């Protein structure tokens, strides 16, 4: 029996199987969280936890491109997010310019920083790169602490309210901006992954020499990978500042970089849905469940225990992460279905020797 004859090529089917459909559906689903919060069904802390998780998901998407496709391990993510947040804070608070200027400035600086790190990655490879980016993140963190004029030092930068198009935007309205940017980021990511750029990055990850032999410019794609990841991180920082209206130097520490790494690894670095699942597992549960419980308010660091255990177990026994889990469950269900159908046939029509 050929199943291709049964496949419906209707208009509806075309829409449902389109890759964007899932992204937009996910966006709509996440929007209902805020709508439910308006109705008072969901507490405001849960809605904000969702918002923050969406921001971390956008950042993790950029990081998954870097780690899963270009094969470059970076630990500078938190520094770049902080940079985005502080640029936004400086533009909005001190210069009193609109958000769009902050966005443009963030993009420009992200491209510059990404290019610099990309050039560093050409000289220093593999495990050393993680250390160097860690050092870079440490430099940025020192600047956040010490450049009091720009960042207000360890007291943290705070903004009373965010104004967009002459109206005050609260975190409730800004949530929809987050979802919109998230869907945009997902669409952008799948376009990069399935374009020649993504294939070239994957080739580069598997073997630098082989990729070079096939005519792939290492310089171009390393720089591109870092620029894209830095832009995602810096835009994440911008969204963070827009959503929380505050930024502290200690937020942008190594543990945030490690948590993002954990989310991407646990989710599966090569799949958008895997990264989504990983981020919600790492950050969502932490923010929405653990932070609300008395036990974890007393022991604030304990949730790290679970992320650490998960990362070790996934690396040890299940390198594909959660994205592979979905495929594995699907094949398991298919296999069981075929088996059960066979058993049913045997019971209904008797054993078939030919089959």
């Amino acid at each position, binding site marked *: 029996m050929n199943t291709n004859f049964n496949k419906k090529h209707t208009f509806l089917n075309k829409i449902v199987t389109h890759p964007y459909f899932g992204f937009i559906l996910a966006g709509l689903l996440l929007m209902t969280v805020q709508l439910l919060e308006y109705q008072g069904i969901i507490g405001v802390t849960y809605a904000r936890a969702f918002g923050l998780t969406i921001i971390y998901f956008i950042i993790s998407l950029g990081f998954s491109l870097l780690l899963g496709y270009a094969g470059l*391990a970076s630990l500078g993510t938190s520094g770049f997010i902080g940079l985005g947040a502080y640029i936004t804070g400086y533009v909005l608070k001190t210069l009193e310019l609109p958000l769009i200027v902050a966005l443009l400035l963030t993009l420009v600086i992200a491209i510059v920083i990404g290019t610099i790190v990309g050039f*560093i990655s050409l*000289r*220093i490879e*593999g*495990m*050393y790169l*993680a*250390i*160097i980016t*860690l*050092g*870079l993140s*440490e*430099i940025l963190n*020192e*600047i956040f602490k*010490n450049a009091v004029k720009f960042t207000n030092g360890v007291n943290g930068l705070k903004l009373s309210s965010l104004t967009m198009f002459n109206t005050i935007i609260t975190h409730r309205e800004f949530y929809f901006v987050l979802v919109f940017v998230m869907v945009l980021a997902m669409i952008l990511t799948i376009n990069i992954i399935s374009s020649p750029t993504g294939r070239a990055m994957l080739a580069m990850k598997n*073997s630098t*020499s*082989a990729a070079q032999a096939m005519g792939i410019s290492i310089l171009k794609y390393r720089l591109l990978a870092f620029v894209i990841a830095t832009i995602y991180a810096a835009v994440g920082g911008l969204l963070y500042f827009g959503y929380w209206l505050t930024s502290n130097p200690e937020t942008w520490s*190594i*543990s945030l970089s*490690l*948590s993002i*790494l*954990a989310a991407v*690894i646990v989710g599966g670095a090569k799949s958008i849905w895997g990264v989504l699942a990983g981020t919600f597992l790492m950050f969502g549960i932490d923010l929405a469940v653990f932070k609300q419980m008395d036990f974890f308010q*007393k*022991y*604030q*660091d*304990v*949730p*790290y*225990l*679970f*992320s*650490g*255990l*998960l*990362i*070790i177990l996934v*690396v*040890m*026994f299940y*390198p594909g992460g959660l994205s592979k889990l979905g495929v594995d469950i699907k094949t398991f269900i298919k296999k069981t279905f075929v088996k059960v159908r066979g058993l049913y046939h045997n019971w209904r029509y008797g054993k078939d020797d030919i089959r």
Partner: protein
Amino acid sequence: MVIQIIIQILLDTLMPAVILMLATLGIVLIFKTSYTTNFAQGSIAALAVYVVSSASALFASIIPGISPVMQLILGIIVGIIAAFLFGLFIDTMILRKSKYINAGGKQMITMGIVLIITGLVPLIFGTLSRTVPKIVYGNIDFTLFGLDFWITKHNLISIIIATVVISVIFIMLRFTKWGLGVRATASNELVASMMGVNTHFITAMSWSIAGALGALSASLYAPIYGNLSSAMMTNIQINGFLASILGGFGTFFGPVVGSYIIPTITGMVAYVSALWKNVIVYGLILIIILIKPIGLFGKKVQKKV
């Protein structure tokens, strides 16, 4: 006057330098035998310091009339043993049992261990602040060539202990069978195992000794740091990595020299600008590494396709 200030800075930075040397030596031992950068070196050391403080409190309660110094020394010994066992546990139970492991995977696992220790410490040792006392309190003032200098007694004892330990490790690497095994494993693990070197034993011992070195460095560093926390060794960890890259991972000798250079330069820069010392020093190191990626004393490794 300038000479006096420079020599005083050199004396002051000797203490951070030996602490960094101990931590870095652990990182390099693991890198040479397991081909991975151990991000958990600092966290294991921090965990060990918590054990030190708990153990010395325990000794105070079970042995009546014990002197505070004896308490601390016994505590440090227990802490070092705990870190030794923890290192052994990581290598034999986690790294060796992993199914599909490569250098990157090992690195991820050590990052996972950092997160686990961060979560575990408040759960086991509570959230109350605790400190580790100095071995001896007080300063030593002395005159050299007609100039006055001073050093704290704790620093002097720490420097002596660390120098002895580092020398012993280097002598062991050069002259014992274990050292030969480590050097053989470092040059090529597969060939070493074919030649009858028990590479599993060598790797496990490297992890254990690295843990013990970290525990010692953290125990000496804790009184200067103040209230203990699971992140207390983060700075030393990062400096240790940068020192290893600065000196070059190729030799054992390079990273130790690198970890003398970094605190010394930081001390010198701090005299000029205390606020921006880390930024300036890290920036300098990054530039040096960009110019010479294999490190100051590194050997060029030929890559095969």
